[in-house]
């Protein structure tokens, strides 16, 4: 299943919270450069899956494989250095730091100078320029020197992605990147996501079905901690069970 062509794979991944089985035998593969959506009703385990893959939670059993390497035992920060980065559904930012500081922190860490106590940050021009470049890509250049807490909510959502991109991931996990952003304003976020470099494999959770069908090359439907089905958007749209369990609810809602 998880051939060398896959950026990420999970093998029989399970997560229990006490007696509650939140993830059940998740076998999932993400090929290089793929745009893969994870959908499912509330409480189906989507965010838990992101937390387990990203390393914030340890799985109860099963394996996580990144580019052919078993990373199950690695901590979250070690996974980031190997090219697996995530964003958060609820803004998880640095309120009193400016975007340029926050992104420069990630760049320094990736360049291996994060632990340096003696290097002058002010004179680390390369790192600052690289951080600035990333902020420019994400349309945040104009806001780069304002404290994060003062940025509009939509801008903060973009910064969420900027922090993850600064780690130069091979696999990017996006947990509802447009969550809470009014539909009229979500265009910018979608544009950013759709113009991500092709070599990054993206796994994203999204509730807006229109978005999912527009951007995803493949879709996995998670229901009650189990993979219900997986396929191309057309296949998923045609699947009667998905229509009944998931899409059907949307129609009635």
């Amino acid at each position, binding site marked *: 299943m998880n051939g060398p062509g896959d950026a990420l794979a999970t093998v029989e991944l399970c997560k229990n919270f006490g007696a509650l089985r939140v993830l059940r035998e998740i076998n999932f593969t993400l090929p290089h450069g793929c745009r893969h959506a994870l959908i499912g009703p509330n409480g189906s385990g989507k965010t838990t899956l992101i937390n387990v893959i990203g390393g*914030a939670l340890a799985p109860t059993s099963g394996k996580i494989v990144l580019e052919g390497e078993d990373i199950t035992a690695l901590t979250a920060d070690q996974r980031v250095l190997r090219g697996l980065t995530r964003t958060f559904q609820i803004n998880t930012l640095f309120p009193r730091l400016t975007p340029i500081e926050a992104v420069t922190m990630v760049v320094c860490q990736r360049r291996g100078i*994060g632990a340096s106590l003696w290097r002058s940050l002010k004179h680390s021009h390369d790192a600052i320029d690289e951080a600035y470049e990333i902020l420019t890509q994400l349309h945040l250049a104009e806001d780069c020197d304002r404290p994060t807490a003062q940025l509009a909510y939509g801008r903060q959502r973009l910064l969420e992605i900027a922090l993850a991109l600064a780690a130069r991931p091979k696999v990017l996990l996006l947990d509802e990147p447009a969550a809470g952003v009014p539909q009229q304003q979500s265009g910018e976020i979608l544009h950013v996501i759709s113009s991500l470099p092709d070599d990054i494999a993206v796994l994203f959770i999204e509730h807006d079905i229109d978005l999912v069908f527009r951007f995803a090359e493949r879709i996995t439907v998670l229901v009650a901690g189990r993979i219900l089905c997986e396929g191309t958007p057309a296949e998923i749209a045609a699947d009667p069970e998905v229509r009944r369990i998931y899409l059907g609810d949307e129609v009635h809602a």
Partner: protein
Amino acid sequence: MTAIEIPSPAQAPTTQERAHRVFAFTSRWRWEEVAFWLAAVISIVVFPTHLVLIAQVLITGLFALSFDLLVGYAGIPSLGHAAFFGIGAYTAGLLARGGWTEPISGLIIAGIVAGIAGLILSVVVSRLTGIALIMITLGVGQFFYEAAHSARGITGGDDGLSGINIAPIFGRFPFDFYGHTAVIYTLVVVFLLYLVARRIVNSPFGLELKGIRENVRRVPAIGVPLRNRYMVAFTVAASLAGVAGALLGQITQTVALSSLDFNRSAAALIIVMIGGMGTLIGALVGAAAYMVAQDRLADLNPVYWNFWVGLMLVLFVLFARGGLIGGVDRLLAWVRAKRNKA
């Protein structure tokens, strides 16, 4: 030097220049810093009868500064920081007792011993957060206090260590009765360590400490090994606190059991609150305000001065969250805004 270009409104800085300026601005010498160090030098000349107080302000300031690195930068709360101050003080005292009377190497050894103690503790502490972390540091502080209390043979127990002989600095400047050597020695050491702390907070590591303070949950998700950063921060802070303790031991030629007292840990927190957390210089300004107030108030009423300290603290927390430094910054911003309007 190139000619100074006067920026015209038409040449507003580009966003990229503004990005770089964020870092230049954060690491700039604030005028409060310049003012504090000038005042420290001037006060030695102007108040020759208060040299002991001046030296103690600087030492307490260094101790509070080491605490600010932990609390104000990394956001790691501690109520047992006096342990490292005391370890440094006893190390310096015992070294001198044992015949190692050279002061500068004594300071360095005390700093290393306190740093090692900090490193060992940080292995435990870095696994914890919140109340558990505060409780552990409190417990460790009490542990060292009682250990020193009962180990009479080594520490002198309640009596502490006294009559410590310290050799002249560089073999040339003996510690004199008036405290001239002591205050200049203290000033130079504290200033140099201030420069070191300044360098650290303006490094990539310093930025990561602020990141940990601002959002401890995000930090692992951007690749920062949190435990390692906790451990380094704890070790550095412990080491600086140890040097502060050693300085006090050397210049007073005594080490009191109170160097390990919980009150000292609490004072560090109060001083950093008064001065302004996460500013470094706030620790020194706060130490000056706290100790001068203590000195004056104790003259007025030796029993109840803590009442005034308590009141001051409440007022600061309620009305001046950024402490003295934050208050001055706001005042200046207000004045500037008024002037721009006029």
